[in-house]
C-alpha cells in the first residue's frame, strides 16, 4: 500500500477489480489508473448523486439513534404508550393469518378444523387490533398529541384508522358465509346512494378480495410506517403545560436555581 492511498480498494494493483473492463484502464499511466475514475466514490459529503442526497436527507431527518432509540423522555411512562405497539403487533398477526386464509381459500376454512381455527385467529386478532387502535386514538386525543408540529402524525393515524375500517369491512364481505350475504345486501344501498356503488361493488367477491387481501392492507401498512416514522422523527409529545429543564425550578428556600441551558 502506498502512503498516500487511503483506501486499499484503489491500490494500483486493485484498480482493475473496480473498473468495468480492461479497456477502461489507462495502461500508459504510471499506476494504470484512468483519471476519470473516482478513486473512492460515495464518501464525498457534497455529492450531487440522487442516492447520496437521499441518504443525507434521511440521516438529517431520522438518524439511527432516533429511528431506534434506546431512551425516551422521562414523561414516556404510562401504559397508554403500549397501545400503539400493540396495534402494530395485532396488525402483524392479522397479516399472517390472513395470508394463510387467502392462500388456502374458503373451502378450507369453512370445512376443516385447522381452517376454522385459522379463521378464528384472524377474527380475534382483528377484534384486538381495533380495541388497541381505538384506545391508542383516544389516548392521543386526550394527550393532544398533535401539538408541536405533529399534526401530520395525527392525520396519518386517523387515515390508518379509516383505512382499517375499510379493510375490516371488505373482510366481512369476503367471508363467503351468511354474514357476507347480508352485509353486502345491506351495505350496497348506502354506497349506491352516494354513487360509490357504481365502482365499489360489495357483491363482487373478486373486487372485494383484491381490496381486502392486497390493496387496503398495503395502504394501512404504508400509512402505519409513515405514522411511526413521524413519531420517531418528531419525538413523543411532551405533557400539556409542562416545562423541561431549560427553565429550572425555584428551590423551596427561595434561592434561584441556575439555568442549565448552555
Amino acid at each position, binding site marked *: 500500500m502506498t502512503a498516500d492511498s487511503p483506501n486499499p480498494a484503489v491500490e494500483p494493483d486493485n484498480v482493475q477489480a473496480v473498473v468495468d473492463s480492461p479497456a477502461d484502464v489507462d495502461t500508459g499511466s504510471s499506476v494504470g489508473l484512468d483519471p476519470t475514475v473516482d478513486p473512492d466514490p460515495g464518501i464525498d459529503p457534497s455529492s450531487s448523486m440522487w442516492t447520496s442526497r437521499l441518504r443525507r436527507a434521511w440521516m438529517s431527518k431520522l438518524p439511527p439513534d432516533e429511528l431506534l432509540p434506546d431512551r425516551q423522555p422521562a414523561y414516556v411512562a404510562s401504559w397508554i404508550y403500549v397501545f400503539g405497539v400493540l396495534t402494530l*403487533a395485532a396488525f402483524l398477526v392479522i397479516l399472517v393469518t390472513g395470508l394463510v386464509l387467502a392462500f388456502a381459500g374458503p373451502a378450507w376454512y369453512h370445512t376443516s378444523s385447522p381452517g376454522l381455527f385459522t379463521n378464528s385467529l384472524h377474527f380475534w386478532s382483528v377484534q384486538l387490533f381495533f380495541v388497541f387502535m381505538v384506545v391508542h386514538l383516544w389516548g392521543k386525543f386526550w394527550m393532544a398529541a398533535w401539538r408541536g408540529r405533529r399534526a401530520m402524525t395525527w392525520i396519518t393515524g386517523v387515515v390508518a384508522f379509516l383505512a382499517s375500517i375499510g379493510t375490516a369491512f371488505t373482510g366481512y364481505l369476503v367471508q363467503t358465509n351468511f354474514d357476507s350475504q347480508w352485509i353486502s345486501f345491506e351495505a350496497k344501498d348506502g354506497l349506491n346512494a352516494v*354513487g360509490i356503488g357504481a365502482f365499489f361493488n360489495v357483491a363482487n367477491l373478486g373486487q372485494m378480495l383484491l381490496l381486502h387481501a392486497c390493496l387496503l392492507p398495503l395502504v394501512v401498512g404504508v400509512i402505519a410506517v409513515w405514522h411511526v416514522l413521524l413519531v420517531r422523527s418528531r419525538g413523543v409529545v411532551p405533557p400539556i403545560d409542562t416545562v423541561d429543564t431549560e427553565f429550572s425550578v425555584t428551590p423551596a428556600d427561595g434561592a434561584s436555581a441556575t439555568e442549565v441551558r448552555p
Partner: protein
Amino acid sequence: MTTRTADRAPAAKRADIASREWKGPWRRYDIVKEGVIALVVVSILTVLLAGLFSSPDEPPLTFQGWATSAPDNFYATAVQELAGTSTSAGYGPPYNTAADGISVGPLAPQQRFGVTHPVDAANDFVITPLRSQLQSADVTDALATWDSASSDQQTAWATDYDTALTDADGDATKVADGDYGPVPVLAQGLTDMASAGALDGILMSQGVFYQTDFTKQILFLGDGSYLDDAATAAHLQGNTWGMMNETGSYPGQAWLWLYSFWYQIPQFNSDNPDDYLTSHADAIIFYIMAVLSLVLLLLPFIPGLRSIPRWIPIHRLIWRDFYRTQPKS
C-alpha cells in the same frame, strides 16, 4: 448565563417545548424489546381467544333452501321479477334505469354515475336460467309463448298475475281466474328448478366458466323475505344496531357504532318510508359520517375542539407520575 424560574417562564416558551427537542430528564426505553413482547402477548391472546371462543361462520343461504323452506315466497318473488315490481327490478342506478336513485339537494351521484352493473331482473333471474336447462314440455311451451309476446303483453300478464297473487295472500291455488299468459308456469318452473338446487349453479356460472361477481344472486336473494327473515332472526337488521352485530353472540364491527347510531334515530327510521329523512337516510347518514371523519382528521386545526384535552384534564391522569415532579405552571 441567565437565571429564570419555571413560573416566570413565558407561556409561549412553555408551549414551544412541544416543538423542540426535549431538554428534560430521560429514561431508558428498549423499543425493540417492547415490540417483541407486544407481539408475543398479542399472539398468545389471539390463540387463547380463538381456542376458547372459535369464530362465527353461518353457512350462506341458498336458492334451494329458499325454494324448499318458503316455496310460496320464492314463487311470488319470481312473479315480481317478471312483472318488474321487485326491489331489484325497480332499483335504478347502478343496476337499471327504472328509478332515478336518491338525491340530496343538488347532490345526485347515484343518477350521475348511471348504470354500471346492469341487471335485467326478468331475464337474468327467471327467463335465462329457465332457458339454460332442459325443461318439461309445459315450461318449454311457456317460454316460447313468453318469447313470442310483445313487451307490453309480457308486462300485462305478469303485473296482472302479481296483483292477483297479492290479493290471494300469496297462495297460488286461490288466485282469481284471469289472463296471465305463461307467467304461472314460468314461476312454478323456476321454483321447481330452485328446489332441485339447479338455480344456485346456474346463477353462479351466468353462462361463463369463471366468475367472481355475485351481484345478481345477492339482489335476487334480497328481493324475497327469506334473507330478511334470517337477518331479523340473527338480530342483524339496521334498525337494531345490526351493522355492528355478528351472527351468534360474537362481537361484530363495533367500530361502526357511530354509523349505526344514526339509523336508530326515529327520523331516519320511521314507519313511513315516504318520510324524507327515512327515504334518504342512506345518503344523508353517509354525508354526516363523511363530515365527522373529516372533523376527526382535521381536529388539530379546529379551534375549540382541539382545546378539549386541555379543558378536561385526563392528561393529568396519563402523565400523573411526571406531573408530580413538575412545578404547577
